[in-house]
Every structure is written in structure tokens, then in C-alpha cells.
């Protein structure tokens, strides 16, 4: 699995999208709101769909049939695995950093 690191400058927005979809399918507008609440910055449509496109190409998310003229996306098993691996990596990195700072 290539992981999120090969998504270049979209790796962080892609992780936000995956986290947003982790509790169920969402369409673009709901993802924007959710990521805005999560990170404090609402992603622009270009950034959001740049990440969505790359995640879809990697098979990490999947488009569902349109509902009310909006297309929801859901996390695939590969996306769930990639997100888990990425969050574990960050957890390990954060733990190491905090231990070295001796604040953990």
C-alpha cells in the first residue's frame, strides 16, 4: 500500500477527508463543514476535491449514488487501513516527540 505520503501536498487534506468519512458517508459540503470544525480551517472546494480525486484514484474512498443532487463518498476498506496506518504513524511520532520533551 502506498499510503497517504505519495499524495504530495494533498496528503494532509486527504487525511482530513478520510477522518471526516470515518464515521459514515458524506457529500462535499458536509465534509467541508466537518473538516472546518475539526481543524479550524474550512478547506476550499479546489483543495477538497483535489484530495477527493486522489483518494478515489487510490481506491481509498468511493462515490455513492447521488442524493438530492449531491454525491456522497464513503471510506473503502483500503482507505480505512491507510487511515489507521497513518494515524498510528502520527501517534508514534507524537509520542516520541512528547517523550523527548519530557512532557508526556
Amino acid at each position, binding site marked *: 500500500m502506498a499510503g497517504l505520503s505519495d499524495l504530495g501536498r494533498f496528503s494532509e487534506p486527504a487525511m482530513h477527508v478520510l477522518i471526516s468519512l470515518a464515521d459514515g458517508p458524506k*457529500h*462535499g*459540503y458536509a465534509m*467541508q463543514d466537518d473538516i472546518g470544525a475539526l481543524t479550524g480551517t*474550512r*478547506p*476550499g*472546494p*479546489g*483543495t*477538497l*476535491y*483535489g484530495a*477527493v*480525486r486522489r483518494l478515489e484514484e487510490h481506491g481509498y474512498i468511493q462515490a455513492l449514488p447521488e442524493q438530492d*443532487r*449531491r*454525491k456522497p463518498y464513503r471510506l473503502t476498506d483500503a482507505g480505512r487501513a491507510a487511515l489507521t496506518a497513518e494515524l498510528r504513524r502520527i501517534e508514534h511520532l507524537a509520542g516520541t516527540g512528547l517523550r523527548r520533551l519530557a512532557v508526556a
Partner: protein
Amino acid sequence: MRRLATLALALYPRRIRDRYGDEIAGLLRDSPRPWRDLADVAWCALGDRITHRAETFTMARARTTALRTAWLLASPAALTAVLAAFMAAAGPLLLLAERFTRVDEHAAHTAYAVMVLPAAALAALLGARTGRRGVARPWLAVPAAMAVGLVAIASVPDAGQILGEHTGASAAAIALWAAGTAVLARLGLALRGRWRWPVQVLGALAVLELATMAYVLISLDAVRAPRQYAPLWYPTAMTAQDSGVVDGAYLQLADVIKILPAMLTVCTVFVLAVSAAAAKTPRTAPQPA
């Protein structure tokens, strides 16, 4: 704002715009910060266009593009050879005809001039075949490449005089022809229905007239080529029905301009055939749009 959003979306490669354009447009429409989001879309679209172009420009595509460009550059030389071959074939036919009827100098020159017709027919077939294989922006690429090929032929010492004795005048006529033919081919893509071909034929004749005029005006002064005969220069050069439009002498115009008008005519047929065939052929390869 809606118009700006449409422009920003137009920056995306076609494949991405077709897939996600409606969703992005929907977010832009409902955006609480439209200017920031518009800038975000434009920036990401430009980035996607650059990376998408790099991704789709594979070695196979580069090779295909190089081969097609080489063919377009070489096509004037190939068509010159075709025209020369048909003219050479007229000789034996005239000898055969002489056994049954009297063939004078005028009839012989007319027979040579008529050989542009089979050459043009072959150019139409070759052009259609080239167009079906796919050429990006054929209305511009084909006349431009052919103009380079024609100027290259005209620049060859001695042999290049086949496209006119005055190289500078030939180059100017070829440049004018390329510009006019490009406009004509582009117009052909925009026009639909029964007016398309009449407009293209009349337009082609006008372009060829202008190119021939440009050559004669640059290479010959008004004493040798009286300007009142200007509209007759192209038909005279093409048909060999010469009443003495240059130096008051029969075929003096053909002696100066050689087969340039005939070659430009054959090349015009080729350009329009490529453009028409390319417009009908669906583009199946991924396009950078």
C-alpha cells in the same frame, strides 16, 4: 461571480472537470467566502492542469506526436513528388494521344496543368487518412507544419526553384497561404450543414488567389506584370490558358512562378481533408484538454 467560477472551472483538465466540475461549482455557489474559495479553485485547477499534462505525456505519446509532426513537415515534399510524378505521366499519355489527333503546345501544357486534379485527389485521401489518425488542433498545426516544409523546399539551392524563382516571394506567398488556410480550416470546424463546403471552396480559391498575387507583386514589377491582370494570375498559372499576363508572353508567368500555385492548391486540399477527418474522429486517448 458565476462567470468567474465558470472561468476557474475551465482551467481544470477536461477529464477532471467532467467528473468533479458540478460538485465543485455547487460548493462555490454555496460558499460563505466566495473570493477565497474561487482563488483556491483556480490555484488547484492550474496545479492539476500542469501535473495532469505531465502524467499523460508518456513516451508513447511523445513518439506518436514526433512521428505525426515529422509526417506533416515531410508532406509537402511527398505531395511535390506526387504532382511531379503525375506531370511526368502526362508525357506518355500525350505521345499516345498524338497517334490519334494533333497535339499542339497549348494542349500539351493544358494536359500538364490538369495533372493537379489527380494529385489533389490523392492529397485528399492522404489528408483524410492523416486526420483519422488524430492531429491536435489540425486547423493550426497542419498549415504551420506544411508551411515550414514548403519553405524548406523553396530554400534548397537550384532545386527549390520548383516553387518559384524568387525565394523571398515564395516564402511570403507560403506564409500568407498558411495563415489563410488556417483561418479557413478553423471556419470549417465552426460551420455546419450545406454552407460548409461552398464556403471552404470559395475561401480556398480566395486564399490561393491572394498567395499567387503576393508572389507576383513581390517578384515582378508593374512593367513586367501589369497589375490589372492580378485576378488572372492564379487561374492563368493553374490552367496554362495564358494570354500574356506577364511580359505579354505566353507561359511567362509559369516560367517565373513554376508549380507554386499548383502545390499550394494540392496542399490546401490536404489541410482541409485533415481538418475535416480529424473533426469527425472521436478522440479516445486521454487528452490534456
